[in-house]
């Protein structure tokens, strides 16, 4: 690895400290922060930290915790789906009453209620806690101040609150797992009336109450974070850092934060109406219901209204998940290919286009929900238009590696894997976005395959690329490359082994969210395939154990970072000292002189953003 930076030291203009000293901006930061009151003791350093780098690490490690929980849940329900006849009695010590043991045969069976609770929690946890907080929370926090050249976030205090609201959301959700009526079990989308009526599902009692409280906390966390990210990007860019000089990571985090800020409040409004229906006897989402032997008093509401409110967030949410991954992958592929990202402006415009379109496609989740079929026409058009900016991004990534000199670090491999997954999962979206085809495919395993590949696996790959790439920035050490490569290949092959066959299940019409398939002749022919998927899922989970071991081992025992710019990257985070202090730069803030992607320009391996333009040199970022 440590090649480029070491070699290109000769000219004086490449000495980072001199460049910062000569051109940098002096904000007298260290005069104001004498003694560093923000990091004076253990609590303010590691727990209630206001330093964006520490908060990023908190988000990452909390996200990893939740990823393990969410992953383990999926293993339990995959065992049920792959091996419905095998005994799960050995899980009794953990799952307690949710495993019923047959007195005669000793066979332990997973209770269907709990199967649905696991499916629901798996979705909620992975979508919100891992791929929103763990991905955007981690890397927006780490990279926005470092890459735009800021001392910290615009409001470090709100930033700290953002993490702790996320933490509380997690705590409440965690508690809900231990309720006697079980956690919420009505699917991560929580459609009423099922989610509104404890009579209809035991998880809709206390479990749903905690689910709503937890996610309300979570939305507060997202909003506090989002306000900060947007303000920091707009107001705290260093001298010379105009918008066209921002790395694509920052563009992606910025648009992600805007999407979150506009869409999450709508979700909360839906949640509040649902809370009213559950507790105050209103009828926003309920109408003419007979349940539990009783006709309810609720009349006049519409369950479909909730779906509109939910998906008005729900669809931007998938871009909130995938955009940061796209940004990370753009940066990682460019750095490790030693080439500028191809079509920087096209990449920015496609991020903006995707962000905009994500707000006018939500009803494609509702083609078969009973909305007027005429309405669907608009949503089909806008949905399929998203394929265009997505295609532009894919072609640009492929062209970025074309003609490069690619260093296959684990980060770069996950970058390539991301593009492969994004292609595979994105293309199936073209089937589902077309309402006529969606009639058959809606709520089948085809959908499960589609979104797991395109926003589950792909987003995880983006996250892994980011972790491997910026691990030295976070912990001053490198992760082990061999373990990283084993992790990559196992996950890449395993993830396709899990999700590719699900397309066939979907094409056979097998509905998702089925506890068993043998009630129907049409769906029961795939036991071998379901076993295969389950085994693959276990292997992929085992690969993640390797990642976690590698992660924690490397924090303390990894190879030490010896130069401040090990990858020969251009962006500002690599101009900070190896041990990044509070305030990020010990002296002045570096000033930016050019765009972030001058790799291989004029025969130079790389030209950092802080290197002034030569006379007559054309800069891409203006």
């Amino acid at each position: 690895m440590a090649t480029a930076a070491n070699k290109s030291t000769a000219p004086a203009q490449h000495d980072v400290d001199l460049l910062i000293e000569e051109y940098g901006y002096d904000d007298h930061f260290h005069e104001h922060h004498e003694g560093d009151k923000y990091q004076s003791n253990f609590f303010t350093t590691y727990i209630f930290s206001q330093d964006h780098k520490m908060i990023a690490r908190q988000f990452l490690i909390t996200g990893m915790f939740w990823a393990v929980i969410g992953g383990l849940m999926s293993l339990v329900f995959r065992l049920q789906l792959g091996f419905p006849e095998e005994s799960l009695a050995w899980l009794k010590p953990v799952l307690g009453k949710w495993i019923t043991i047959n007195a005669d045969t000793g066979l332990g069976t997973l209770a269907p209620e709990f199967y649905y609770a696991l499916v629901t929690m798996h979705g909620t946890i992975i979508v919100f806690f891992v791929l929103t907080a763990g991905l955007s929370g981690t890397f927006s926090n780490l990279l926005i101040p470092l890459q735009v050249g800021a001392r910290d976030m615009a409001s470090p205090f709100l930033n700290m609150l953002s993490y702790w609201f996320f933490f509380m959301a997690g705590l409440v959700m965690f508690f809900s797992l231990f309720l006697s009526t079980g956690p919420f079990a009505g699917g991560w989308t929580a459609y009423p009336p099922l989610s509104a009526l404890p009579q209809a599902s035991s998880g809709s009692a206390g479990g749903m109450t905690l689910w709503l409280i937890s996610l309300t906390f979570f939305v507060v966390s997202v909003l506090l974070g989002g306000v900060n990210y947007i303000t920091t990007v707009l107001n705290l860019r260093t001298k010379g850092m105009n918008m066209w000089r921002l790395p694509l990571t920052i563009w992606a985090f910025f648009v992600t934060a805007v999407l979150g800020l506009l869409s999450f409040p709508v979700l909360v409004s839906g949640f509040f109406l649902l809370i009213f229906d559950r507790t105050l006897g209103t009828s926003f989402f309920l109408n003419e219901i007979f349940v539990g032997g009783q006709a309810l008093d609720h009349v006049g509401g519409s369950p479909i209204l909730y779906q509109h409110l939910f998906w008005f967030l729900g669809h931007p949410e998938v871009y909130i998940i995938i955009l940061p991954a796209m940004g990370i992958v753009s940066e990682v592929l460019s750095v490790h290919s030693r080439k500028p990202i191809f079509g920087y402006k096209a990449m920015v415009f496609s991020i903006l286009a995707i962000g905009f379109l994500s707000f006018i496609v939500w009803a494609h989740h509702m083609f078969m929900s009973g909305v007027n079929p005429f309405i669907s026409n608009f949503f089909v058009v806008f949905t399929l238009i998203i394929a265009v900016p997505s295609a532009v991004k894919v072609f640009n990534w492929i062209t970025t590696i074309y003609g490069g000199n690619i260093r296959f670090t684990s980060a770069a491999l996950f970058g390539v894997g991301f593009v492969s997954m994004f292609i595979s999962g994105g293309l199936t979206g073209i089937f589902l976005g077309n309402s006529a085809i969606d009639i058959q495919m809606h709520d089948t395993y085809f959908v499960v395959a589609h979104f797991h590949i395109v926003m589950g696996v792909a987003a995880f790959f983006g996250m892994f690329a980011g972790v491997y790439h910026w691990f030295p920035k976070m912990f001053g050490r490198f992760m082990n490359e061999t373990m990283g490569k084993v992790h990559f290949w196992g996950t890449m092959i395993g993830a396709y082994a899990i999700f590719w066959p699900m397309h066939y299940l979907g094409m056979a019409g097998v509905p998702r969210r089925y506890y068993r398939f043998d009630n129907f002749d049409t769906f029961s022919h795939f036991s071998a395939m379901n076993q295969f998927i389950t085994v693959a899922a276990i292997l992929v989970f085992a690969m993640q154990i390797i990642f976690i071991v590698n992660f924690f081992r490397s924090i303390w025992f990894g190879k030490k970072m010896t130069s401040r710019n090990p990858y020969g990257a251009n962006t500002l985070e690599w101009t900070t000292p190896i041990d990044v202090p509070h305030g990020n730069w010990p002296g002045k803030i570096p000033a930016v002189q050019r765009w972030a992607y001058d790799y291989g320009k004029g025969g130079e391996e790389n030209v950092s953003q802080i290197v002034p333009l030569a006379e007559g040199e054309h800069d891409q970022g203006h």
Partner: protein
Amino acid sequence: MTTLLAIACILLITVVVVQIGKVTELATKLRGEEEAEQISNKRTGSFLLVFVFAFLVFCVGSAIYYKNWMLGYGPHEAASAHGSRLDSLFNVTLFFTGIVFVITQILLFYFAYKFRGEKGRKALYIPHDNRLEVIWTVVPAVVMTFLVISGLDAWNEVMADIQEGEEYVEIEATGYQFAWHLRYPGPDGKLGTRNFKLINAANPLGQDWTDEKNWDDLHPSEIVLPVGKKVRVRITARDVLHNFFLPHFRLKMDAVPGMPTYFVFTPSKTTEDYRRELSKYKEYQALSDPADPNSEPLWKVFNYELACAELCGKGHYSMRRVVRIVSEEEYTKWLSEQKPYYMTSIRNTIEDPFNGILLPGEAAETAPDTSKTTPQ
């Protein structure tokens, strides 16, 4: 035991990988970083090339292997008039996306292999090319336009309600936790009115018995429909959301409490026809019950099925009904054998508002007695 063994295996693999990781780190130190990187790049590049080849073979091979089990392929042609249109739309989309899939995956991995890091190679400096950007914006846009137009054309036709003056059979399916309740309109061709407040054990749909359109309504336990005739399914739900899903007919629609939805379709193959199609494929010669050597082959016991496709609670996976498509004559015969629910289960019970009162057209001797009960 298997579980313990599996966990032990996973732990062992982890330990091995950690050790290998340590060793290679040491080896890197001995050999020098740069050289180690060269070797690793070379090896990884070839892996990527092998991967894309194996992956594409796996994709195509598995698709061929499962062809006869998937709807729309092999014997599983759509059993409704609109279904084949949706299937061909699927295939057209598969054609275009398949081309893009193969080309982009090959390019991605081949470039990764071709441009793997080598000592002394200089990366090109090409920041952008507007002509290329235009090409790969316009081409997907054109393809999407084509797919949108053909998709919407099909969609609006499939989703259209019955036109005025059209002849059709109307049936009703009501989802509840956890089954479907079916209703046919009876000889008058009209479904009677319902009120959810009237629902009880004897009156599962909350039919208003003072509405005489309800008197002849049938409550069969399976869906039987004539081939080639337009059917309008009125879809309702009693408690939570359900979804009326007929996979073989490419039909799916949510059942929403308090808001009836509908789906119009025309069955195009009888159950017998479909079985005959299946019998031509060897996959369906297998025994339907592998444990019983005397059981019928799979094709012989085939039935169309109705399923629920919207999560509705813990019994969601079990809401099955059989659907039988028969010839017009068989249908008429079956229909004539069905007894109205009101007459068999409600008439002259305490549920009946006309308990003891003669209905128009009812002969006096069928009335039980002359006590003075009045409609409630």
